[in-house]
């Protein structure tokens, strides 16, 4: 897993069926990269739904969140619509898990990414990262603490 104080590798992935999105487009903003295993997690109040309630908090820190999993762009589109998600989900689909591998959070055995969080500052430097234990939704307290630290350093 990539450590802190290094530049986050850039990438370009599908954000919607007909749009691609590059990390570098968010220069000047703090970014939360949320790698997660799969769309359609069965629990209510799952990780992505939790982040969906948090735009107010992320806005306060000039931060944008991106969800990334190996699900395809059409799957993401249906998932976003069903859960009414307001933030971008990226499809790390082809080649499968390439970006998760770059960030060191791909699980070869299961063929999916781990549940991992990276918080980048507005220059694209990784300032905090966290690998969540299997099956445990990490919540958002760590993300907010990291954003608070970034904002205090300014």
């Amino acid at each position: 897993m990539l450590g802190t104080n290094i530049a986050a590798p850039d990438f370009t992935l599908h954000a919607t069926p007909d749009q691609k999105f590059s990390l570098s487009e968010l220069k000047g903003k703090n970014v939360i990269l949320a790698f997660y295993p799969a769309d359609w997690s069965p629990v209510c109040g799952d990780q992505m739904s939790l982040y969906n309630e948090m735009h107010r908090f992320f806005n306060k820190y000039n931060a944008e969140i991106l969800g990334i999993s190996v699900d395809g762009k059409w799957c993401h589109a249906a998932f976003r619509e069903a859960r009414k998600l307001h933030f971008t989900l990226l499809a790390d689909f082809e080649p499968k898990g390439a970006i998760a591998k770059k960030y060191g959070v791909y699980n070869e055995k299961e063929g999916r990414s781990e549940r991992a969080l990276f918080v980048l500052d507005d220059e694209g430097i990784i300032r905090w990262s966290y690998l969540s234990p299997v099956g445990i939704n990490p919540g958002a307290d760590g993300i907010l603490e990291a954003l608070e630290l970034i904002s205090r350093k300014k």
Partner: protein
Amino acid sequence: MPGLKPPFSKADHYKGDLESAVQLLEYGDFQCPHCGAAHPMLKKIEKRFGSRMLFIFRHFPLSELHPYAKIAAIASEAAARQGSFWEIFDLIFENQSRLNREMLLGLAKSLHLNLKKFQTDLEDPALAEKVESDFESGILSGVNGTPSFYINGEKYNGPYTFESLSLAVDQAIEDSSRSV
């Protein structure tokens, strides 16, 4: 391990004995089916531990997922202003499947609340802010879904079954008696 931020205070909704050995706190959402399912289980927990346990509730409405979660939370705050928080709390969960604004007004009526005041309070931004501030405390405390439980300020990560939760409460009672 995430702990409760801020810790319990009398500004929270609580029931039981303030001097009791264990504080069980729930972050919940009135429209969340898992919270609805946990409600009768929590009743059993309360019954079992009686005065040995203080039960506390904080709001954690997932409003994007549950369109009536926030208004239900505000309605419970409006009822609290008339001394009926725990009464409406039970009624909302017991009637969760038909939750909407009309239903909340009906519950207020059945509790013989002053309806005019109740309706005015539903629009009071101070109550919406109270709900928001509970939500924010939940985020800072590491709430990762609903219901989330804290026992004496420590997050409980086990399953929401009577057996598992009462075991954890038992353990906390034992720990507190040992440390005295």
